[in-house]
């Protein structure tokens, strides 16, 4: 929080009015012996004297904070301003100016509090709701203290607040699938026997086997010790590629329509959350308009938070990176690659093909909104239509290359792709002898 002093105690136009009319009117009433004028002037003179006698002598001190600084989109945080040293203050007001994707309650952004003579502190607070993911700078909050009769005002700006709104992952689920497991722990069944929960078979006891694995019924029948063998549980590596180079469609925030970037970010969050809850490792690479952000593979709640933080830092805008920078991005070995893109720029599709040629399983999730409003301008509209036709051709070409392109539809979007991977994993393979 940084408090910028705008003005110390200053007389308001109301005080100038009361003083001017009071003094000039009283003088005129006395000089010209006009008792009627005296009656009109007296209330203004009383108010001027009252205001002057109760003029605050010292500047109040403002301590402001926004807590929590990080919320999920759609959730609210609270700005609280505490004014101390408020002797002779009548009431205090705070104005939180309107800002895109930030809603205040009350909607006007104005909160006020009455100050009594015995109060030592005045507290102003206003909930602020983030209606879209991202990092939102709060406009300078204008705090004003007012003395009796509105005669004097003191004003500061409370600045330098940023609210981080983490994307609210869409509802996502995928049918249980057999992914290519290559880690040490996790929920995916390995092809190898080991410590796990899924039954593999019963075999003779070997040195090192745990006693709790001994199958006593089988051991009694066979007259030698046997143990229940299991498949080891292992995790998979999901590599997410997020194309945030451009945003298409109108975003209405959490309560309205979703733009392509909204869908991309929320889908990426949903997929990451889903696989992390299963114990898999997730890495992410974001092609933003300003930078390429990389999150290495990891799992757990803190890693999910890290991924959501990086997604929240995306700012839609014109691309400033070239195709080379995208193509140079590293692809982890044995990973299941999922690319989220509106597929308007051909970079994502080219990258998907290059990943697929390395033998990795890769799927492209199409996040372009179905109800995309084309431009009102005839030429731009025509250009858009041509580009969308080209896009269809490019998508078909990618599909012919063996890369599935899936339209994002929430829960179950990736099921056909995951089933395809499972079939591939269980299919007989040619082996050299």
């Amino acid at each position, binding site marked *: 929080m940084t408090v910028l002093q705008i003005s110390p105690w200053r007389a308001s136009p109301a005080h100038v009015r009361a003083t001017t009319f009071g003094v000039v009117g009283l003088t005129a009433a006395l000089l010209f012996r006009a008792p009627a004028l005296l009656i009109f002037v007296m209330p203004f003179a009383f108010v001027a004297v009252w205001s*002057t006698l109760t003029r605050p002598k010292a500047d109040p001190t403002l301590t402001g904070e926004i807590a929590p600084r990080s919320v999920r989109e759609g959730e609210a945080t609270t700005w609280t301003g505490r004014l101390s040293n408020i002797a002779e203050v009548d009431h205090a007001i705070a104005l939180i100016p309107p800002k895109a994707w930030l809603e205040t309650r009350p909607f006007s952004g104005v909160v006020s509090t009455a100050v009594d003579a015995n109060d030592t502190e005045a507290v102003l607070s206003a909930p602020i709701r983030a209606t879209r993911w991202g990092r939102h700078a709060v406009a300078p909050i204008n705090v004003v203290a007012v003395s009796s009769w509105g*005669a004097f005002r003191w004003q500061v700006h409370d600045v330098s607040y940023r609210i981080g709104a983490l994307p609210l992952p869409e509802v996502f689920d995928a049918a249980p699938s057999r992914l290519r497991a290559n880690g040490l722990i996790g929920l995916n069944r390995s092809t190898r026997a080991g410590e796990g929960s899924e039954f593999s078979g019963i075999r003779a006891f070997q040195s090192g086997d745990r006693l709790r694995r001994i199958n006593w019924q089988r051991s009694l029948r066979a007259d030698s010790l046997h143990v229940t063998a299991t498949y080891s549980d292992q995790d998979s590596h999901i590599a997410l590629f997020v194309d945030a180079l451009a945003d298409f469609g109108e975003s209405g925030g959490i309560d309205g329509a979703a733009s392509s970037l909204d869908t991309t970010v929320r889908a990426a969050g949903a997929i990451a959350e889903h696989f992390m809850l299963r114990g898999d490792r997730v890495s992410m690479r974001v092609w933003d308009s300003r930078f390429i952000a990389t999150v290495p593979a990891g799992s757990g709640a803190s890693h999910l938070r890290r991924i959501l933080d990086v997604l929240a830092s995306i700012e839609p805008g014109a691309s400033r990176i070239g195709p080379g920078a995208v193509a140079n991005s590293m692809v982890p070995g044995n990973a299941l690659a999922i690319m989220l893109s509106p597929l308007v720029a051909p970079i994502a599709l080219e990258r998907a093909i290059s990943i697929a040629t390395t033998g990795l399983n890769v799927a492209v999730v199409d996040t372009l909104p179905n109800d995309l409003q084309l431009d009102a301008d005839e030429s731009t509209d025509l250009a858009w239509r041509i580009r969308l036709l080209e896009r269809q051709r490019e998508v078909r070409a990618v599909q012919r290359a063996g890369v599935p392109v899936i339209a994002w539809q929430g829960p179950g979007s990736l099921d056909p792709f995951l089933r395809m991977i499972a079939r591939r994993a269980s299919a007989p393979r040619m082996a050299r002898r």
Partner: protein
Amino acid sequence: MNRLKIQNLIDLFIEASPQQWLFRTLAVATPLGAMLATSAANQQLWLVGLAIVTGLAAVSALVPDSDVALIVVIVVVWRWLAAVDSIDTPWLPVAAVCLLGYHSVTALAASIPNGGELERDTTIKWLVQTALIGAMTVGTWGLVVMFDRRDADGNIVLSLLALALVSGAALTIRSRSLT
């Protein structure tokens, strides 16, 4: 008036809170009440003056943090002084209290942004303060009427003392307001 100013004016209407609308209504009604009190004391309805005051009061209600309110007060008082000679008419304190209410409601409206609402405690406090000053005004009127009925001669010493008191008070107010 350019397009931006018109838009700002429209925003002033759209974004105003119900409390601000109440303040604005009172800011138009109170000087109008003072003008009607003048007409009642004078037994003459000055329609042009009513229209002028209503227009000025409406402007000051929309922009309460301006000097238009001072013009409204001056016009109303000038009208009274020009039209009514009597000071023992009860319409005089009525008009004075109306102007006090106008000043009070304009000052209160100016202390909060257009869409905001003040807490109930604040408005009640201002209401009590205004009623107190209003009562003092009526008391002053009673004193003035009493002295007027005694028809006492003017006292130059008392007048000079009063002028000195007013000048001293003015200087004190000025120095305390500016520093």
